[in-house]
């Protein structure tokens, strides 16, 4: 069984992802359903989907300050942030709230 999720990028985030605003991805087997978290997802997104300027996406092991993350339209800060366990069919949105994109 694999996890298939939708990733969305807006507010200028899409510029870092080949201008794609929405992308459905099937995560590799290394993501175990029921235990894989955002902590694993973020570096995977950076290494596999990001097309430029990793430093504008992540800072340390989390997203850069000013990037809003919504999980199924709820603030990830209410969902445990990096500890959130990914579920199949989740929609995870990254929105840059920074002026310069």
């Amino acid at each position, binding site marked *: 069984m694999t996890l298939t999720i939708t990733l969305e990028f*807006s507010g200028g985030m899409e510029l870092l992802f080949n201008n794609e605003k929405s992308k459905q991805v099937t995560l590799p087997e290394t993501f175990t359903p029921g235990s894989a978290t955002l902590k694993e997802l973020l570096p995977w997104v950076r290494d596999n989907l990001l097309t430029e*300027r990793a430093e504008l996406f992540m800072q340390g092991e989390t997203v850069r*300050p*000013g990037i809003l993350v919504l999980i199924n339209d709820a*603030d990830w800060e209410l969902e445990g942030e990096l500890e959130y366990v990914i579920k199949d069919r989740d929609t995870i949105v990254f929105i840059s709230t*920074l*002026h*310069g994109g």
Partner: protein
Amino acid sequence: MCSIDQDVDMPVPKSKITTRRDLLQGRCHKCKEAPPVVDMKRVQYCRPCFIESVLYRFKLAVMRGSKEPDGAKVCIAVSGGPSSSLLLEGMKRFHAIDPTNPRKRRKFSEMIVCYIDTAAVLGHSEKAVEIDQAAKEAGFEFFRVPLESVFLNPDGSDPGVLVPQGINAQEIIQLQMIQQSTSVTPAERLQQCVHALGKATAKEEMLELLTWKVIIRLAKREGCAVVARGDNSTRMAVNVIAQTSRGRGFGMPVEMSEHAGWYKGITIVRPLRDILAKEVAVFNRFEQIHAVLTPEFTTGMPAKASIDRLTEAFVVGLQNEFPMTVNTVVRTAAKVVTGYTDEDTTPCPLCDGPIQKSSSDWRARHTVSNLAAVKNPASTTGGVKQKEDGKSSPCSNDCACSENVTSVTVPPPSISTSCCSSTRASAKPMDISPHICYACQNLCRDVVDTAAAAAVTRRKTAAPLPTSQNPASATSIAASIAAPPPEQQQPAFVLPAYVAEAVVSRKGRDWMKKEIGEFLIEDGED
């Protein structure tokens, strides 16, 4: 709490009043029922309560910001970013007829949307079409004004352009500018103006102040008493710090206070002044408000690209750790009083902001602006090998706007054959630097620095220059200025003609004051 007057069209049900004051874990802090979906650190909202809260704060800021009688016409200034999309949507809802009370009078008579098109310098002209669409959907008249129109008179006639006759920054910056007619298009003038500036910070600042000039012009032309801007609170906190570090502290009340009253006949409202950038993003997502991304000079650049970006990274990082950061900065800055409302405070001919009295004197006394005279510019810009005996004849192969013009008074136009432009001079050059504000002086200094750096690079690559026997003498400088311009030239700095007109009209006023001065009775005299 937070009851909303019914003249804002609310798509959300009114929250149930609850008497329980305690905040329940896992419940919205407002309705205390639904699970929260937005975390603002001190408060958590469910979706409907969040939307309601944002619109409430929006409306409150509009009501508190515009104190003039009802019936004013509003100019909504949009850039295409998320905040201006929310601004447009919020104003649309604010202006909508109350379905429960259709006979209630609206606060404003009419709204127009204005978008200043920066395509000439930043590209992406097609974005205007999308904003046009959004404005049409809102039912507002849409004005797309190209930024380069700032180089024309408000009536569209061509006043020519200001070109430098001599700039130096050895002691106090001097900006000898001359107004002349030109065949260069307004768009090219804008490009020259912006690209002659080196630093991203300076480019951003110039674009910002020209954009604002065009907005105010349009608002006046269209008879708008109110201009609505989309600065959110995060943005405002960034502005406080960035503007202050650029030397715009004196004009801070104009930027920050709810009733600045600086622009004659025009009130500026900032409906998003109590809404964080994060809230803008969440609101737009929930309400499916589409933003048109408008690129800036520093879009996609690292945080250190400009003062603005650096400050933003600083504020946002701080806000992450201390959720009251933005709030505190904005509220504190809104209370700053600088005496800018004094009767005799004049507007800066370039940026229209208030000028602190005798700011150029102050600058001359308190700042070290002759650094270039002390250091060899070559040594500061990267160790260019240059023979000392050469002494790099000042400007022998450059136009007058380059460095090394050691505090000369600029030669009369009869001697010089207008170094920076081939067109004929049609007016006397005037030094505009004493008339512009401190921050604009700083901004224009960047031209000098950039020209100096470019000249060094050119010298590095070009054949050795003929050395002058007597580099400091006025004659050699005059000769060097009269020399034909080098083949490859820096984009020459130009300024819009309105600056000169503002200086002239002000000079006229000062002259009159002087003339009639002896007949005036000063305060304190008997």
